[in-house]
């Protein structure tokens, strides 16, 4: 019996996977935490941040959530630690630290 993507985890039997691993729901990549690949982690300094939002479009993984026209802290479940946001920030409000 084929399960929904949200029901699939690493203990699921082969009989319960969809045919050809096809996925019949949208947006399922949100459910998969790919941030574990990261070797460096961005740190957001809220004092220095002017909410200019320049970092947001530069993030290749949509890992800087925005609500009410203001950025929130990083989505570390999906951030790969590339550091592009550090370069994009004109106010040095983002720095990288080693490790996850």
């Amino acid at each position: 019996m084929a399960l929904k993507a949200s029901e699939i985890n690493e203990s699921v039997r082969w009989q319960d996977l969809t045919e050809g691993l096809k996925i019949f729901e949208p947006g399922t990549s949100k459910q998969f935490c790919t941030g574990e690949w990261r070797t460096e982690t961005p740190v957001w300094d809220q004092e220095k941040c002017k909410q200019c939002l320049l970092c947001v479009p530069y993030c290749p993984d949509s890992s800087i959530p925005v609500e009410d026209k203001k950025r929130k802290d990083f989505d570390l479940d999906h951030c790969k630690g590339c550091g592009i946001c550090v370069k994009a920030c004109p106010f040095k409000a983002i720095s990288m630290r080693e490790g996850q």
Partner: protein
Amino acid sequence: MSENRLYTEPVAGIPDRMSGNEAVANAIRQINPDVMPAFPITPSTEIPQFVATMISNGVIDTEFIPVESEHSSMSAAMGASAAGARTLTATSSCGLAYMWEMLYVAASDRLPIVMAVVNRALTGPININADHSDSMGARDSGWIQIYAENNQEVYDNFIQAYPIAEHKDVMLPVMICQDGFITSHAVENITLLPDEPVKAFAGEFEPEHYLLKKDETMAVGPYAVSKYCMEAKKAQAEAMKRAKDVILEVGKQFGEMSGRSYGFFEGYELEDAEYVCVAIGSACGTIKEAIRALRARGIKAGLLKVRVFRPFPAEEIAIALQNAKVIAIMDRCEGYSAQGGPLAADVMAALYRAKNQAEAFNVLYGLSGRDVQVEDIESLYAQMQQIAEGAAYETYQYMGLRE
């Protein structure tokens, strides 16, 4: 130009004559599939040519996609099939080799594409003639493989392809194989079926899920980490096992419609045979001719002609060979394993598991279009008789070789 024949459609049920490529084109005409991406390569080129001609003449309304390579034709076929279209393509030799990575994806994505394979040697040395090295190389790609001895069989097999591929228990792509030039270009007697029953037999492609389905989102071919790949492969392997029952059922139903039933293999004078050739494809006609002469002399010669190579009917072949004393397994494909060819590897394994004690050896023949003559086969049966009397033999030998 035999192309003209397609302007005046053959009359069903009346014996006719045409090439194997034209026979496949007529099956395609009767089925009228939705999409055909294809790239020309000898000796399969005529098939897309015939189809394109029929489309331009308004005989069928298949969407033909001229692509820039076979890698593209298989990619386009996968896209069309995933979108929900009944899809086919045709290729040979290096063209099939150029599809390699996509063959595996088509199978693992469970897309029931049908491909007319006109078997031709893989280079090198560079050569355009018949042998099975192209499709045999793809034997582990997850495609069902069905081979034909003659034009009638390749026509019949093509009509059975979609009901097998699209069966809900299967959902796997199918290769319908015939020998390059020997059957693809040689004009033989054939009897076509009427259009309507063929259309009804092939039915319509009605997949449960497809990309263009209204109100359903769908992603095909997602990345799978190690924690999921083995489970996916097991599910695919089980579909290949289930294909066995479906192939038999479709072969039986085809027989009810046409009077020609099909199984995994054909036994010719096999039941009481002591000396048996196991072979695939057009050479089986030559082997049958040799058997008729040998039987007239009281020699118990027989043939097991393998039709379905993937899934491999190991248990059934072992049972059919249980009374044989000597078995010559014939490969039209060098495997370079230092042990012999692919058919022999699978048949030997089947015999071993069935604890069959027959003397069995592998004969490489007909490579790159080398002619196979009745005399060659008679010599082979003579060798089998000597082996039965205790003569030593090589388990991996060539037939028709200058040495």
